[in-house]
């Protein structure tokens, strides 16, 4: 478990009045993504605790339409929590999250509808184990987007084709390899036409020979203009597909810049330290 205290000025406790102490300097904050798309996902001053553990510390982050943001950082830095907060699988203590201009609703149908606009791909695939691959991909279309079965199946088959698992449509998830399951999971998320896709370490549970088939699907998605936030340790993917790299440590965004800048010339000591560790392997 990493030390939750970061060096540098302490972030203001949420709720305690007093002089606002500036947070740590974020390097490269001005760097903008290619294209001047409008803001699709906006986080403002997001704070989150797990008990006494401060996992997200006044996070400000904007993801523009069509932008691919890669989030990297050491284990326990809050990357998963950040992802999960964006579609409210995790509640936040304070701050604000907006999707396409609308604040995340707290509960109920409104929230369910908004969640459909935010696709999510999990490390452990989480395909519905009792449903076939095809049913996994049609379910959301039929129950959430209210499409009829025929339309949903056509779309499902074309999505499965696009991720290269069309031949597996009638199998159950347990009959597929990890790489195939994850590609189905991507198709399932795409099927409800999300505005943005979140990936939380989508290749971390895969055998090495399967990582590329999943990354290739993601690269294609990025080329097609999908807005994406990707938590990953795949630096090759970050270099080739990301418009922007967000580096997190101890619940803060420490550095936020282009992949070239980040890998070529990391500004913060934390990022340099992190890169030296992972690039050695």
């Amino acid at each position, binding site marked *: 478990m990493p030390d939750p205290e970061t060096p540098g000025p302490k972030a203001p406790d949420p709720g305690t009045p007093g002089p606002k102490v500036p947070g740590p300097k974020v390097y490269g904050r001005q760097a903008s993504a290619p294209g001047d798309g409008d803001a699709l996902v906006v986080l403002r001053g997001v704070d989150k605790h797990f008990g006494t553990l401060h996992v997200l510390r006044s996070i400000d982050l904007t993801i523009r339409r069509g932008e691919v943001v890669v989030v990297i950082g050491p284990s326990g830095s809050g990357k998963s929590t950040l992802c999960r907060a964006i579609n409210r699988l995790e509640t936040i203590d304070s701050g604000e999250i907006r999707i396409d201009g609308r604040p995340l609703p707290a509960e109920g149908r409104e929230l369910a509808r908004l969640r459909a606009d935010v696709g*999510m791909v999990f490390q452990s695939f989480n395909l*519905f184990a*009792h449903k076939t691959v095809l049913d996994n991909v049609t379910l*959301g279309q039929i129950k959430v987007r209210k499409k009829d079965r025929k339309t949903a199946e056509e779309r499902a088959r074309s999505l499965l084709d696009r991720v290269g698992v069309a031949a597996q449509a009638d199998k159950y998830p347990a009959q597929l390899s990890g790489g195939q399951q994850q590609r189905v999971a991507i198709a399932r998320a795409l099927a409800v036409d999300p505005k943005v896709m979140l990936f939380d370490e989508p290749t971390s549970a895969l055998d090495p020979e399967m990582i590329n088939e999943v990354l290739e699907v993601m690269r294609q998605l990025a080329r097609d203009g999908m807005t994406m936030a990707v938590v990953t340790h795949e630096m090759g993917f970050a270099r080739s597909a990301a418009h922007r790299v967000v580096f997190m440590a101890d619940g803060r965004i420490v550095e936020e810049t282009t992949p070239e800048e980040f890998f070529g010339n990391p500004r913060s000591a934390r990022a340099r330290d992190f890169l030296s560790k992972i690039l050695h392997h």
Partner: protein
Amino acid sequence: MFDFLEGYDLLGAFWVTVQLTFWSALGSLVWGTLLAAMRVGPVPLMRGFGTAYVTVVRNIPLTVIIVFTSLGLFQTLGISLGADRFTTINFRLAVLGLTAYTSAFVCEALRSGINTVPLGQVEAARAIGLSFPQILRIIVLPQAFRSVVGPLTNVLIALTKNTTVAAAIGVAEAALLMREMIENEAQLILISAIFAFGYICLTLPTGLLLGRLAKKVAVKR
């Protein structure tokens, strides 16, 4: 040797047992599922009700519940469940009592099944925009049921045997007939053996059949 069976409607009595079991099983499956849904749901009031119901009902002897349906519901409150013949009223009251009792066990079996469904299944369902009732109905309960066919079979077998308690309020099922025969005939051991065999004929195939079903529907992960 079996002359003493003359004049007793053995098959008729076991048919009543089957009917009691069937309707009570159906009722407790529905009510037990609703109770389980309440217990895992987000509404505190429903959760509280579900928990209280199961705790109370599980700890009352079935005989007390069955007798209460007759003395309390029918004779005191005049609830006759839409029937006007005594036998029908008693039959329905017994089904009500058995359902009320058995559903607590169905609920608990189902809840343990719900606990076997990985959280990731629920999160993935939330992430594609399904609502809580949809997630329960389409994702969680189907997987939960598949994993508790075994425990539910035990509940069903217990229910089959528990229908004997309906004799307490005069429902003419097998146990009542057995009591009558024991009073009137001399072959006590033989009578007991015949009824034991009758119950085994009901429960054994159920167990075998559902055991096979359990293997067939098990969710592979």
